[in-house]
Structure formats: structure tokens, C-alpha cells
């Protein structure tokens, strides 16, 4: 009985060591990630860039295409999420206004069926 107990303990210890090594010491390295995995502040800054460009271009379709790098989520939802974070993180009022304007524009924008997103 004690022999099996020893083996079980060794197995458990091995698994624990493997988990610790694989998750903490040498986890899987990602080098080619997609923008969906960006941290929220980087996502928000990307949306701010799009909003800054939108301010001059006034082209919601182009803004939506730029936001499409975040996946299939609706562009207005992406902008809205960024707007929420920008409020929480106390972005400057100018930046907040830009993101708000983009969000509103995307909420009212109707994509033309058949147009492709990147």
C-alpha cells in the first residue's frame, strides 16, 4: 500500500512540476498574436487613432474597416468599449470627445451589404 502511495505522490509531484514549468517558468510564447488579444489600453489607443483619423476623414466605413482588425465584433461595440475604458482611465476631454464622436458615427452607420472587411 505504501508503495502505491509513494508512486501516487511521485506522479502528483511530477504533474505539479510540469504545470509550474509550463505555465510559469517556460510558458508558450506567442509572437504572432492578433489585435483581439491586445491589452485594453492598447485597444483603446488604437480606437483613439481611428477616431483621430475619422475626425479629418469623416468616413465611417473606413473607420469600421480599421476597427475590423479586432475581429467580428461590431465596430460600434469596439468603439463603445474603448469609450468606457477612456472614461475610467481619465483620458483627456479632447480624446474622449473624439472617441464619442466615432462611437456615435458607427452606431448610426449602416454598412453596405457585400462590402468586405479586411
Amino acid at each position, binding site marked *: 500500500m505504501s508503495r502505491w502511495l509513494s508512486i501516487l505522490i511521485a506522479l502528483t509531484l*511530477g*504533474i505539479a512540476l510540469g504545470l509550474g514549468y509550463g505555465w510559469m517558468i517556460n510558458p508558450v510564447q506567442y509572437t504572432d498574436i492578433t489585435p483581439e488579444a491586445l491589452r485594453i489600453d492598447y485597444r483603446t489607443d488604437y480606437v483613439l487613432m481611428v477616431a483621430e483619423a475619422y475626425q479629418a476623414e469623416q468616413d465611417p466605413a473606413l473607420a469600421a474597416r480599421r476597427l475590423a482588425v479586432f475581429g467580428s465584433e461590431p465596430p460600434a461595440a469596439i468603439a463603445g468599449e474603448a469609450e468606457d475604458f477612456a472614461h475610467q482611465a481619465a483620458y483627456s476631454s479632447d480624446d474622449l470627445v473624439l472617441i464619442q464622436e466615432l462611437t456615435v458615427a458607427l452606431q448610426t452607420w449602416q454598412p453596405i451589404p457585400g462590402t468586405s472587411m479586411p
Partner: protein
Amino acid sequence: MKTNRFLWVWLLLTLVLGFGLGLAYTWVISPVEYVDAEPLVLRDDFKDHYRAAIAAAYASTGDLERARARLTLLGDPNPSQVLTAQAQRMLATGESSEVVQQVAMLAAALQGEVGTNLPTEIPTSSPEPIRQSISTSTSTPETSLPTSEIEPTNTPVPLSTATARPTRTSTPTLGAPYQLVGQDTVCDSELAEGLLQIVVINVTRNQIPGAEIVITWSGGEEHIFTGLKPELGNGYADFLMAPDVTYSVRMADGGTPASGITPSTCTASDGNNYLGGQLITFQQP
């Protein structure tokens, strides 16, 4: 004694087995998920999207400091070079000229910060300043002049152009027509044969980067941009002409075109003839 040794072997094997199971779980079944990644680890094509967005924002706000800070996130060793290369890739893939122009403009703005010793103005329509800038560039490997031969099919091979370091004041005003203010023959045996050089300047004679130029000839058309060779000037672009082909050059934004352009015939000091070039200068009034 023998039993104990056998037990230790079993324990060791079990430990290794457990370690392997743990690794398999963490690396394959449930690897670490990156949900708070930085732009540095984005896939290359998404980095291009990111840079394009930075350039678009810069084109709107003119905030170079913010653009530079954002580019830092991507970890590019030389952002202006990366942007220039991206602009050329985008041109090759048929990206819209507006987007390419934005990327090229940002590259040019960053070049301006580096503080090269390139001329930012050209004094007259004389070809001399251009040739001077070219001869300077030959001392730098990265800025060497194109020496590729003209293809036998008579298809003009466009040389890559790029944007350079614009200041906010030298940004072209959209819709303003350009005037043809200079069209000169260039005979310089050190230049590529049939080299068509184009310089675009504004009213204060500052060179304008990112300006789109349309070159047409019988059966063909090519669009190039100024500033893709910032070492030769922010408003500089060039193109290799084929012999016996007549070209017309105009700014995409409109204005006076230069027509009837062909490679000139020049005579070298040893008496041999060679194909000379042309220097076209457009100015935004």
C-alpha cells in the same frame, strides 16, 4: 535492498511521467492565453495595420510626438525605414493612394526629426541641386542610386519612391493645382540612363512629400509618390524611362502636365552617346 532500488526507479519514472503530463497540459491542452498583449508581439500584417492607423491619426492631428510614442510600441528599430518599406509594399499591393500617402508622410516627418543634411529646398528649376543631392547619396550604401537596367520589353520600370520628412507647412494642399515650373535635360553619366527626376515644391520652395504623380505613356500608366527616397529630398521621385517612348507627367491632384518627355541623347567625354534624363519640377502655387 533490491526491492528498494526497484521502487526508486518506479518513483522516478512516475515523476517524469507526471512532469510530461503537466507539460502537455500547459503547452498543448491549456496553454497560457495572452489577453493583455502588447503591440510588440502583433503579427506582421497587423503591425502594418497598426502603423497605418498611427499614420492616419498623424495625418489628422499632426501630433508627431504622439505618433512617435505609438510607433515605439511596435519595437521597430528604425520606424521611418519600416514605414517607408510599408508604403512601398502598400503601393505594390494596390492600396489606396490616400493611405499610402499617410504612411509616407509619417515616414517623412520622422526623417525630418533625424536631421539629415539633405536639401529641403531647391533654388531653381536647374538640375544642379538634384544632381548634387544624388552624388551625396552615393556615399551612403542605403541611399545608392538605382542602377537597374531598362527591361527589354520597353516597359518602363518605376523606381521606388518614398516620402520624406515633411514639415506641417510643406504638406500639399488637397485640390490645389500644380504648375509645371521646370523641365530640363540632365546629362550626367553617373546617373542611371533615362532617369526621369521629378521634384515637387510648394510656394515657399519647400519640397512636398507624399505627392502623387501620374506618369503615362502609350499603353501604360504609373503612379509614384514623392518622398520615398528621402535621402534625395522630401519632394523627390524618379522613374526610369525606356528609349523611344514618350511620356507625360502630371500631378494626380491636377495642374499643368509635362508632356512629350523622352530620354535625351547625351555625349560623354569620350565621345560616346548615352541616354540622358529629364528633370521636371512642379510647384504648388
